[in-house]
Protein backbone atom coordinates (compact mmCIF):
# COMPACT_ATOMS: atom_id res chain seq x y z
CA UNK A 1 0.00 0.00 0.00
CA UNK A 2 2.80 2.42 0.90
CA UNK A 3 4.24 1.99 -2.58
CA UNK A 4 1.20 3.45 -4.31
CA UNK A 5 0.69 6.69 -2.40
CA UNK A 6 1.65 9.71 -4.52
CA UNK A 7 2.49 13.01 -2.85
CA UNK A 8 2.51 16.62 -3.85
CA UNK A 9 5.52 18.57 -2.58
CA UNK A 10 5.74 22.01 -1.03
CA UNK A 11 9.24 23.52 -0.80
CA UNK A 12 8.33 24.71 2.70
CA UNK A 13 8.70 21.15 3.90
CA UNK A 14 5.30 19.52 3.35
CA UNK A 15 4.33 16.33 1.55
CA UNK A 16 0.59 16.03 1.12
CA UNK A 17 -2.05 13.96 -0.63
CA UNK A 18 -5.67 12.86 -0.52
CA UNK A 19 -6.04 9.13 0.15
CA UNK A 20 -8.51 7.18 -1.91
CA UNK A 21 -10.82 4.38 -0.86
CA UNK A 22 -8.80 1.28 -0.03
CA UNK A 23 -5.97 3.06 1.76
CA UNK A 24 -5.68 3.58 5.48
CA UNK A 25 -4.30 6.67 7.27
CA UNK A 26 -2.08 4.46 9.47
CA UNK A 27 0.48 4.47 6.63
CA UNK A 28 1.30 7.99 7.83
CA UNK A 29 3.85 6.59 10.28
CA UNK A 30 5.88 4.95 7.54
CA UNK A 31 6.29 8.27 5.73
CA UNK A 32 7.03 10.17 8.95
CA UNK A 33 9.99 7.81 9.46
CA UNK A 34 11.08 8.06 5.84
CA UNK A 35 10.93 11.86 5.64
CA UNK A 36 11.74 12.91 9.22
CA UNK A 37 12.41 16.55 8.30
CA UNK A 38 9.06 17.08 6.59
CA UNK A 39 5.40 17.41 7.55
CA UNK A 40 3.27 14.61 6.17
CA UNK A 41 -0.38 15.47 5.52
CA UNK A 42 -2.95 12.91 4.46
CA UNK A 43 -6.61 13.65 3.88
CA UNK A 44 -8.90 10.68 4.36
CA UNK A 45 -12.69 10.89 4.47
CA UNK A 46 -12.75 14.69 5.08
CA UNK A 47 -10.20 14.58 7.90
CA UNK A 48 -6.63 15.72 7.39
CA UNK A 49 -3.98 13.93 9.44
CA UNK A 50 -0.78 15.91 10.04
CA UNK A 51 2.41 14.60 11.58
CA UNK A 52 6.14 15.31 11.67
CA UNK A 53 8.72 13.14 13.40
CA UNK A 54 8.91 14.09 17.05
CA UNK A 55 5.51 15.81 17.15
CA UNK A 56 2.01 14.57 17.97
CA UNK A 57 -0.57 13.60 15.40
CA UNK A 58 -3.04 16.39 14.54
CA UNK A 59 -6.50 15.68 13.12
CA UNK A 60 -8.12 18.60 11.32
CA UNK A 61 -11.56 18.73 9.74
CA UNK A 62 -10.43 20.74 6.73
CA UNK A 63 -9.46 19.85 3.18
CA UNK A 64 -5.75 19.11 2.88
CA UNK A 65 -5.17 22.03 0.46
CA UNK A 66 -6.43 24.44 3.11
CA UNK A 67 -4.22 22.90 5.80
CA UNK A 68 -1.18 23.15 3.48
CA UNK A 69 -2.00 26.80 2.82
CA UNK A 70 -2.20 27.52 6.59
CA UNK A 71 1.10 25.79 7.35
CA UNK A 72 2.88 27.45 4.41
CA UNK A 73 2.08 30.85 5.93
CA UNK A 74 4.18 30.10 9.02
CA UNK A 75 6.90 27.86 7.62
CA UNK A 76 10.14 29.00 5.96
CA UNK A 77 11.53 27.83 2.64
CA UNK A 78 13.81 24.82 3.17
CA UNK A 79 17.17 25.09 1.35
CA UNK A 80 17.23 21.33 0.76
CA UNK A 81 13.89 21.55 -1.04
CA UNK A 82 14.86 24.47 -3.27
CA UNK A 83 13.13 24.15 -6.65
CA UNK A 84 11.25 21.03 -5.60
CA UNK A 85 7.67 22.28 -5.60
CA UNK A 86 5.83 19.53 -7.46
CA UNK A 87 2.16 19.39 -8.30
CA UNK A 88 2.03 17.41 -11.51
CA UNK A 89 2.69 13.90 -12.74
CA UNK A 90 4.29 14.91 -16.07
CA UNK A 91 7.77 13.89 -15.03
CA UNK A 92 6.58 10.47 -13.93
CA UNK A 93 4.59 10.06 -17.14
CA UNK A 94 7.65 10.67 -19.32
CA UNK A 95 9.84 8.40 -17.24
CA UNK A 96 7.29 5.59 -17.05
CA UNK A 97 6.77 5.56 -20.82
CA UNK A 98 10.51 5.41 -21.41
CA UNK A 99 10.98 2.20 -19.41
CA UNK A 100 8.79 -0.20 -21.37
CA UNK A 101 10.47 -2.72 -23.69
CA UNK A 102 7.86 -3.50 -26.30
CA UNK A 103 9.39 -6.82 -27.33
CA UNK A 104 8.89 -8.10 -23.78
CA UNK A 105 5.22 -7.17 -23.53
CA UNK A 106 3.55 -9.38 -20.90
CA UNK A 107 0.18 -8.16 -19.66
CA UNK A 108 -0.43 -11.34 -17.68
CA UNK A 109 2.63 -10.63 -15.54
CA UNK A 110 1.54 -7.02 -15.11
CA UNK A 111 -1.87 -8.07 -13.80
CA UNK A 112 -0.27 -10.77 -11.65
CA UNK A 113 1.78 -8.19 -9.75
CA UNK A 114 -0.61 -5.27 -9.38
CA UNK A 115 -3.15 -5.75 -6.58
CA UNK A 116 -6.75 -5.73 -7.83
CA UNK A 117 -7.89 -3.05 -5.41
CA UNK A 118 -5.51 -0.61 -7.08
CA UNK A 119 -7.12 -0.87 -10.49
CA UNK A 120 -9.33 2.14 -9.96
CA UNK A 121 -6.82 4.30 -8.12
CA UNK A 122 -5.94 7.49 -9.91
CA UNK A 123 -2.24 7.13 -9.11
CA UNK A 124 -2.02 4.11 -11.37
CA UNK A 125 -4.18 5.48 -14.18
CA UNK A 126 -1.12 5.93 -16.38
CA UNK A 127 -0.18 2.27 -15.94
CA UNK A 128 -3.63 0.90 -16.77
CA UNK A 129 -4.11 3.28 -19.68
CA UNK A 130 -0.85 2.05 -21.18
CA UNK A 131 -2.23 -1.49 -21.23
CA UNK A 132 -5.21 -0.43 -23.27
CA UNK A 133 -3.11 1.01 -26.07
CA UNK A 134 -3.59 -1.74 -28.64
CA UNK A 135 -1.07 -2.51 -31.36
CA UNK A 136 -1.81 -1.26 -34.85
CA UNK A 137 -1.82 -3.82 -37.63
CA UNK A 138 1.20 -2.08 -39.21
CA UNK A 139 3.33 -2.82 -36.16
CA UNK A 140 3.25 -6.54 -37.08
CA UNK A 141 4.40 -5.95 -40.65
CA UNK A 142 8.05 -5.44 -41.50
CA UNK A 143 8.28 -2.77 -44.17
Amino acid at each position, binding site marked *: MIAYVRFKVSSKGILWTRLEEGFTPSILNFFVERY*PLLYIMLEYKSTTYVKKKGSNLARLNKPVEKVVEDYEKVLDEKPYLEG*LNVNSDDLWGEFYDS*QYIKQRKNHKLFHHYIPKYLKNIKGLKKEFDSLNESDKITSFIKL
Partner: protein
Amino acid sequence: MNTLEKVKILGAASKYDICASSASPRNHSSERIGNPCGPGICKSFTPDGRCVTLFKVLYSNSCTHDCKYCMNNNKCSKKVAMFEPQELAQTFMKLYLQNYVEGLFLSSGIVKDSDYTMGLMLDAVRLLREKYLFNGYVHLKVLPGSSLEMVKQAAELSDRLSLNLEVPSKTRMSEISEIKDYKVDIIRRHNYIKRQRLASGATTQFVVGSTDESDFEILEKTNWMYERMNLKRVYFNAFVPVPKTDLQNKQQVSLEREHRLYQVDFMLRKYNISFKTFKKHVLSDNGMLPRGDPKIFLAKELIKEPVSINSAGEDELLKVPGIGPLSAKRIISFRRQKSIKTYSTLQALGVVLKRAKSFINLNGIVQRSLGDYY
Protein backbone atom coordinates in the same frame (compact mmCIF):
# COMPACT_ATOMS: atom_id res chain seq x y z
CA MET B 1 16.44 20.67 -24.53
CA ASN B 2 14.15 20.68 -21.49
CA THR B 3 14.29 18.23 -18.59
CA LEU B 4 11.19 16.27 -19.66
CA GLU B 5 12.73 15.57 -23.04
CA LYS B 6 15.99 14.50 -21.40
CA VAL B 7 14.13 12.12 -19.09
CA LYS B 8 12.37 10.63 -22.11
CA ILE B 9 15.61 10.07 -24.07
CA LEU B 10 17.91 9.05 -21.22
CA GLY B 11 15.26 6.89 -19.54
CA ALA B 12 14.69 4.97 -22.77
CA ALA B 13 18.45 4.66 -23.28
CA SER B 14 18.81 2.87 -19.95
CA LYS B 15 15.82 0.56 -20.15
CA TYR B 16 17.88 -2.54 -21.02
CA ASP B 17 19.87 -2.28 -17.79
CA ILE B 18 18.51 -4.43 -15.00
CA CYS B 19 18.26 -3.47 -11.37
CA ALA B 20 16.06 -5.53 -9.15
CA SER B 21 16.63 -4.63 -5.56
CA SER B 22 16.60 -1.43 -3.60
CA ALA B 23 17.40 -3.00 -0.25
CA SER B 24 20.31 -1.76 1.78
CA PRO B 25 21.14 -2.44 5.43
CA ARG B 26 22.25 1.15 6.09
CA ASN B 27 20.78 2.94 9.11
CA HIS B 28 17.99 5.49 9.11
CA SER B 29 18.88 9.06 9.98
CA SER B 30 16.52 11.59 11.45
CA GLU B 31 18.61 14.45 10.06
CA ARG B 32 18.20 13.44 6.43
CA ILE B 33 15.53 12.65 3.83
CA GLY B 34 14.67 9.15 2.78
CA ASN B 35 15.92 5.77 3.82
CA PRO B 36 16.91 2.53 2.14
CA CYS B 37 14.45 -0.10 3.29
CA GLY B 38 13.81 -3.77 2.75
CA PRO B 39 13.44 -5.48 -0.62
CA GLY B 40 10.24 -6.02 -2.51
CA ILE B 41 8.78 -2.52 -2.72
CA CYS B 42 7.66 -2.04 -6.30
CA LYS B 43 6.29 1.39 -7.13
CA SER B 44 4.79 0.47 -10.44
CA PHE B 45 4.88 -2.04 -13.30
CA THR B 46 5.36 -1.53 -17.02
CA PRO B 47 3.25 -3.44 -19.57
CA ASP B 48 6.12 -5.93 -19.89
CA GLY B 49 5.51 -6.93 -16.26
CA ARG B 50 8.81 -5.52 -14.99
CA CYS B 51 8.71 -3.56 -11.78
CA VAL B 52 9.72 0.10 -11.69
CA THR B 53 11.49 0.70 -8.40
CA LEU B 54 14.36 3.01 -9.18
CA PHE B 55 14.77 6.15 -11.25
CA LYS B 56 16.82 4.34 -13.88
CA VAL B 57 18.47 6.76 -16.20
CA LEU B 58 21.69 7.54 -18.08
CA TYR B 59 23.69 10.65 -17.35
CA SER B 60 24.36 10.95 -21.07
CA ASN B 61 23.64 8.75 -24.09
CA SER B 62 26.67 10.01 -25.97
CA CYS B 63 29.28 7.23 -26.03
CA THR B 64 32.75 6.69 -27.46
CA HIS B 65 32.35 2.89 -27.36
CA ASP B 66 31.21 0.75 -30.26
CA CYS B 67 29.25 -2.13 -28.67
CA LYS B 68 27.31 -3.60 -31.57
CA TYR B 69 24.13 -4.45 -29.63
CA CYS B 70 23.84 -1.09 -27.89
CA MET B 71 21.52 1.73 -28.94
CA ASN B 72 23.96 4.30 -27.54
CA ASN B 73 27.08 3.22 -29.44
CA ASN B 74 29.23 5.73 -31.33
CA LYS B 75 27.95 4.68 -34.77
CA CYS B 76 24.24 4.96 -33.99
CA SER B 77 22.53 8.13 -35.15
CA LYS B 78 20.50 9.36 -32.21
CA LYS B 79 19.36 12.47 -30.44
CA VAL B 80 22.05 13.12 -27.86
CA ALA B 81 21.08 14.33 -24.39
CA MET B 82 23.00 14.99 -21.21
CA PHE B 83 21.96 16.06 -17.73
CA GLU B 84 23.61 18.73 -15.62
CA PRO B 85 24.44 17.41 -12.11
CA GLN B 86 22.00 19.87 -10.51
CA GLU B 87 19.26 19.05 -13.00
CA LEU B 88 19.60 15.31 -12.45
CA ALA B 89 19.64 15.65 -8.66
CA GLN B 90 16.56 17.87 -8.71
CA THR B 91 14.64 15.63 -11.13
CA PHE B 92 15.33 12.58 -9.01
CA MET B 93 14.36 14.30 -5.77
CA LYS B 94 11.01 15.35 -7.26
CA LEU B 95 10.18 11.75 -8.09
CA TYR B 96 11.47 10.46 -4.76
CA LEU B 97 9.49 12.94 -2.70
CA GLN B 98 6.36 12.17 -4.70
CA ASN B 99 6.95 8.51 -3.76
CA TYR B 100 7.20 7.34 -7.36
CA VAL B 101 10.65 5.77 -6.96
CA GLU B 102 12.62 4.05 -4.23
CA GLY B 103 16.10 5.13 -5.24
CA LEU B 104 18.44 6.12 -8.05
CA PHE B 105 20.09 3.90 -10.65
CA LEU B 106 22.61 5.93 -12.58
CA SER B 107 24.61 4.80 -15.58
CA SER B 108 26.01 6.61 -18.60
CA GLY B 109 27.50 6.42 -22.04
CA ILE B 110 31.16 7.41 -22.06
CA VAL B 111 31.60 11.09 -22.83
CA LYS B 112 35.27 11.99 -23.58
CA ASP B 113 36.63 9.30 -21.23
CA SER B 114 35.45 7.11 -18.35
CA ASP B 115 36.87 9.22 -15.52
CA TYR B 116 35.44 12.44 -16.90
CA THR B 117 31.96 10.90 -17.11
CA MET B 118 32.24 9.18 -13.73
CA GLY B 119 33.22 12.57 -12.29
CA LEU B 120 30.00 14.14 -13.59
CA MET B 121 27.89 11.25 -12.28
CA LEU B 122 29.56 11.52 -8.89
CA ASP B 123 28.92 15.29 -8.82
CA ALA B 124 25.20 14.60 -9.23
CA VAL B 125 25.15 11.96 -6.47
CA ARG B 126 27.24 14.20 -4.19
CA LEU B 127 24.66 16.97 -4.67
CA LEU B 128 21.94 14.53 -3.71
CA ARG B 129 23.74 13.47 -0.57
CA GLU B 130 25.00 16.89 0.52
CA LYS B 131 22.59 19.54 -0.77
CA TYR B 132 19.34 17.58 -0.84
CA LEU B 133 20.24 15.49 2.25
CA PHE B 134 19.17 12.31 0.44
CA ASN B 135 19.74 9.21 2.55
CA GLY B 136 18.05 6.64 0.30
CA TYR B 137 19.30 3.99 -2.09
CA VAL B 138 21.77 4.73 -4.89
CA HIS B 139 22.99 2.18 -7.42
CA LEU B 140 25.87 3.47 -9.55
CA LYS B 141 27.31 1.91 -12.66
CA VAL B 142 31.08 1.88 -12.78
CA LEU B 143 32.08 2.71 -16.33
CA PRO B 144 34.55 0.36 -18.05
CA GLY B 145 38.09 1.71 -17.65
CA SER B 146 37.37 3.94 -14.62
CA SER B 147 40.28 4.63 -12.27
CA LEU B 148 40.56 3.18 -8.77
CA GLU B 149 40.09 6.66 -7.30
CA MET B 150 36.72 7.04 -9.07
CA VAL B 151 35.60 3.58 -7.92
CA LYS B 152 36.51 4.51 -4.33
CA GLN B 153 34.49 7.73 -4.49
CA ALA B 154 31.57 5.89 -6.07
CA ALA B 155 31.62 3.31 -3.28
CA GLU B 156 31.52 6.04 -0.62
CA LEU B 157 28.45 7.66 -2.15
CA SER B 158 26.38 4.64 -3.17
CA ASP B 159 24.85 1.47 -1.79
CA ARG B 160 25.54 -0.75 -4.75
CA LEU B 161 28.03 -0.67 -7.62
CA SER B 162 27.82 -2.66 -10.81
CA LEU B 163 29.81 -3.09 -13.98
CA ASN B 164 28.38 -5.07 -16.85
CA LEU B 165 30.37 -7.99 -18.27
CA GLU B 166 27.90 -8.22 -21.20
CA VAL B 167 29.67 -11.34 -22.58
CA PRO B 168 31.46 -14.26 -20.90
CA SER B 169 34.97 -13.94 -22.34
CA LYS B 170 37.60 -11.84 -24.07
CA THR B 171 37.03 -13.67 -27.36
CA ARG B 172 33.32 -12.98 -27.21
CA MET B 173 33.98 -9.33 -26.39
CA SER B 174 36.06 -8.99 -29.55
CA GLU B 175 32.96 -10.05 -31.51
CA ILE B 176 30.92 -7.11 -30.27
CA SER B 177 33.45 -4.35 -29.64
CA GLU B 178 36.84 -3.37 -30.98
CA ILE B 179 37.40 -0.77 -28.27
CA LYS B 180 36.61 -2.50 -24.96
CA ASP B 181 39.42 -4.55 -23.42
CA TYR B 182 37.68 -7.32 -21.46
CA LYS B 183 40.49 -8.01 -19.00
CA VAL B 184 41.68 -4.45 -18.41
CA ASP B 185 38.51 -2.38 -18.73
CA ILE B 186 36.13 -4.81 -17.04
CA ILE B 187 37.68 -7.64 -15.01
CA ARG B 188 40.36 -5.39 -13.48
CA ARG B 189 37.66 -2.83 -12.52
CA HIS B 190 35.66 -5.63 -10.89
CA ASN B 191 38.76 -6.26 -8.81
CA TYR B 192 38.70 -2.60 -7.77
CA ILE B 193 35.02 -2.89 -6.83
CA LYS B 194 35.72 -6.06 -4.82
CA ARG B 195 38.08 -4.08 -2.56
CA GLN B 196 35.38 -1.54 -1.61
CA ARG B 197 32.93 -1.72 1.28
CA LEU B 198 29.44 -1.65 -0.20
CA ALA B 199 26.21 -1.77 1.77
CA SER B 200 24.42 -3.75 -0.96
CA GLY B 201 27.36 -5.39 -2.72
CA ALA B 202 28.19 -5.45 -6.42
CA THR B 203 26.41 -6.90 -9.43
CA THR B 204 26.93 -7.49 -13.12
CA GLN B 205 24.86 -8.26 -16.20
CA PHE B 206 25.10 -10.38 -19.35
CA VAL B 207 23.41 -9.63 -22.63
CA VAL B 208 22.38 -13.21 -23.39
CA GLY B 209 22.74 -14.06 -27.06
CA SER B 210 24.43 -10.90 -28.34
CA THR B 211 27.19 -13.25 -29.56
CA ASP B 212 26.67 -16.96 -30.14
CA GLU B 213 27.88 -17.92 -26.69
CA SER B 214 26.49 -21.00 -24.97
CA ASP B 215 24.76 -21.23 -21.60
CA PHE B 216 27.81 -23.15 -20.38
CA GLU B 217 30.08 -20.16 -21.09
CA ILE B 218 27.71 -17.78 -19.32
CA LEU B 219 27.20 -20.00 -16.28
CA GLU B 220 30.90 -20.82 -15.95
CA LYS B 221 31.68 -17.10 -15.89
CA THR B 222 28.79 -16.44 -13.52
CA ASN B 223 30.13 -19.03 -11.11
CA TRP B 224 33.64 -17.60 -11.43
CA MET B 225 32.34 -14.10 -10.65
CA TYR B 226 30.51 -15.32 -7.54
CA GLU B 227 33.57 -17.18 -6.30
CA ARG B 228 36.31 -14.71 -7.19
CA MET B 229 34.61 -11.31 -7.18
CA ASN B 230 32.12 -11.89 -4.34
CA LEU B 231 29.25 -10.60 -6.44
CA LYS B 232 25.84 -10.26 -4.89
CA ARG B 233 23.89 -10.97 -8.07
CA VAL B 234 24.37 -11.65 -11.75
CA TYR B 235 21.61 -10.47 -14.07
CA PHE B 236 20.76 -11.88 -17.48
CA ASN B 237 19.12 -9.82 -20.16
CA ALA B 238 17.88 -11.64 -23.27
CA PHE B 239 19.21 -9.89 -26.35
CA VAL B 240 16.66 -7.74 -28.14
CA PRO B 241 17.68 -6.33 -31.55
CA VAL B 242 17.65 -2.55 -31.47
CA PRO B 243 16.97 -0.67 -34.74
CA LYS B 244 19.94 1.18 -36.30
CA THR B 245 22.54 -0.98 -34.51
CA ASP B 246 24.89 -3.49 -36.19
CA LEU B 247 22.89 -6.37 -34.72
CA GLN B 248 19.46 -5.07 -35.75
CA ASN B 249 18.84 -8.12 -37.95
CA LYS B 250 19.97 -10.67 -35.40
CA GLN B 251 17.28 -12.93 -33.97
CA GLN B 252 15.80 -11.92 -30.62
CA VAL B 253 16.71 -14.37 -27.85
CA SER B 254 13.80 -16.18 -26.23
CA LEU B 255 12.82 -15.05 -22.76
CA GLU B 256 12.69 -18.73 -21.79
CA ARG B 257 16.48 -18.95 -22.15
CA GLU B 258 16.86 -15.99 -19.82
CA HIS B 259 14.46 -17.65 -17.37
CA ARG B 260 16.43 -20.94 -17.35
CA LEU B 261 19.66 -19.07 -16.65
CA TYR B 262 18.01 -17.33 -13.70
CA GLN B 263 16.80 -20.69 -12.39
CA VAL B 264 20.33 -22.12 -12.45
CA ASP B 265 21.76 -18.90 -11.02
CA PHE B 266 19.32 -19.13 -8.13
CA MET B 267 20.35 -22.70 -7.42
CA LEU B 268 24.04 -21.76 -7.51
CA ARG B 269 23.44 -19.03 -4.95
CA LYS B 270 20.79 -20.45 -2.67
CA TYR B 271 20.75 -24.25 -3.00
CA ASN B 272 24.45 -25.08 -2.46
CA ILE B 273 24.47 -26.95 -5.78
CA SER B 274 27.84 -26.65 -7.48
CA PHE B 275 28.40 -25.56 -11.04
CA LYS B 276 30.19 -28.90 -11.69
CA THR B 277 26.96 -30.76 -10.89
CA PHE B 278 25.06 -28.71 -13.47
CA LYS B 279 27.81 -29.23 -15.99
CA LYS B 280 27.72 -32.99 -15.48
CA HIS B 281 23.98 -33.60 -15.22
CA VAL B 282 22.04 -30.78 -16.84
CA LEU B 283 23.94 -29.00 -19.61
CA SER B 284 23.66 -30.73 -22.97
CA ASP B 285 26.61 -31.52 -25.27
CA ASN B 286 26.31 -28.20 -27.09
CA GLY B 287 26.54 -26.36 -23.78
CA MET B 288 22.90 -25.23 -23.70
CA LEU B 289 20.36 -25.77 -20.94
CA PRO B 290 17.56 -28.13 -22.00
CA ARG B 291 13.98 -26.88 -22.30
CA GLY B 292 12.27 -27.42 -19.00
CA ASP B 293 13.07 -26.80 -15.38
CA PRO B 294 16.78 -27.48 -14.66
CA LYS B 295 15.89 -28.64 -11.16
CA ILE B 296 13.72 -31.45 -12.51
CA PHE B 297 16.57 -32.59 -14.80
CA LEU B 298 18.92 -32.50 -11.84
CA ALA B 299 16.51 -34.40 -9.60
CA LYS B 300 16.05 -37.14 -12.19
CA GLU B 301 19.82 -37.65 -12.22
CA LEU B 302 20.60 -37.23 -8.53
CA ILE B 303 17.60 -38.72 -6.72
CA LYS B 304 17.81 -42.49 -7.06
CA GLU B 305 15.43 -43.32 -4.19
CA PRO B 306 12.52 -41.07 -3.11
CA VAL B 307 13.73 -38.63 -0.43
CA SER B 308 12.29 -39.35 2.98
CA ILE B 309 10.66 -36.15 4.17
CA ASN B 310 10.92 -37.09 7.85
CA SER B 311 14.62 -37.97 7.93
CA ALA B 312 16.43 -36.26 5.03
CA GLY B 313 18.92 -33.47 5.72
CA GLU B 314 18.59 -29.94 4.33
CA ASP B 315 20.91 -30.55 1.35
CA GLU B 316 18.94 -33.62 0.35
CA LEU B 317 15.59 -31.82 0.67
CA LEU B 318 16.88 -28.98 -1.47
CA LYS B 319 17.44 -31.37 -4.37
CA VAL B 320 13.70 -32.08 -4.56
CA PRO B 321 11.79 -29.94 -7.09
CA GLY B 322 9.11 -27.93 -5.33
CA ILE B 323 11.17 -27.58 -2.15
CA GLY B 324 13.11 -24.33 -1.80
CA PRO B 325 15.46 -23.02 0.90
CA LEU B 326 12.58 -21.61 2.94
CA SER B 327 10.33 -24.67 2.77
CA ALA B 328 13.31 -26.96 3.55
CA LYS B 329 13.98 -24.95 6.72
CA ARG B 330 10.29 -25.07 7.65
CA ILE B 331 10.18 -28.85 7.18
CA ILE B 332 13.20 -29.35 9.45
CA SER B 333 11.80 -27.00 12.05
CA PHE B 334 8.36 -28.70 11.95
CA ARG B 335 9.96 -32.16 12.30
CA ARG B 336 11.42 -31.16 15.64
CA GLN B 337 7.86 -30.96 17.02
CA LYS B 338 6.28 -33.94 15.26
CA SER B 339 6.61 -35.99 12.11
CA ILE B 340 4.98 -34.93 8.87
CA LYS B 341 2.22 -37.33 7.89
CA THR B 342 0.10 -35.71 5.19
CA TYR B 343 0.56 -33.94 1.88
CA SER B 344 -1.58 -31.07 3.15
CA THR B 345 0.95 -30.41 5.95
CA LEU B 346 3.71 -30.28 3.34
CA GLN B 347 1.64 -27.89 1.26
CA ALA B 348 1.11 -25.68 4.29
CA LEU B 349 4.88 -25.59 4.77
CA GLY B 350 5.26 -24.13 1.28
CA VAL B 351 6.11 -27.22 -0.77
CA VAL B 352 4.82 -27.27 -4.36
CA LEU B 353 3.31 -30.75 -4.29
CA LYS B 354 2.71 -31.02 -8.04
CA ARG B 355 6.47 -30.92 -8.58
CA ALA B 356 7.66 -32.66 -5.44
CA LYS B 357 5.35 -35.69 -5.19
CA SER B 358 7.22 -38.03 -7.50
CA PHE B 359 10.53 -37.48 -5.71
CA ILE B 360 9.50 -37.87 -2.07
CA ASN B 361 8.64 -40.57 0.41
CA LEU B 362 6.09 -39.42 2.97
CA ASN B 363 5.73 -42.02 5.72
CA GLY B 364 6.03 -44.80 3.14
CA ILE B 365 3.73 -43.16 0.59
CA VAL B 366 5.51 -42.91 -2.75
CA GLN B 367 3.87 -41.71 -5.92
CA ARG B 368 4.19 -44.22 -8.70
CA SER B 369 5.11 -43.23 -12.21
CA LEU B 370 4.31 -45.04 -15.46
CA GLY B 371 7.97 -46.12 -15.66
CA ASP B 372 7.53 -48.30 -12.56
CA TYR B 373 5.22 -50.64 -14.48
CA TYR B 374 7.56 -51.36 -17.37
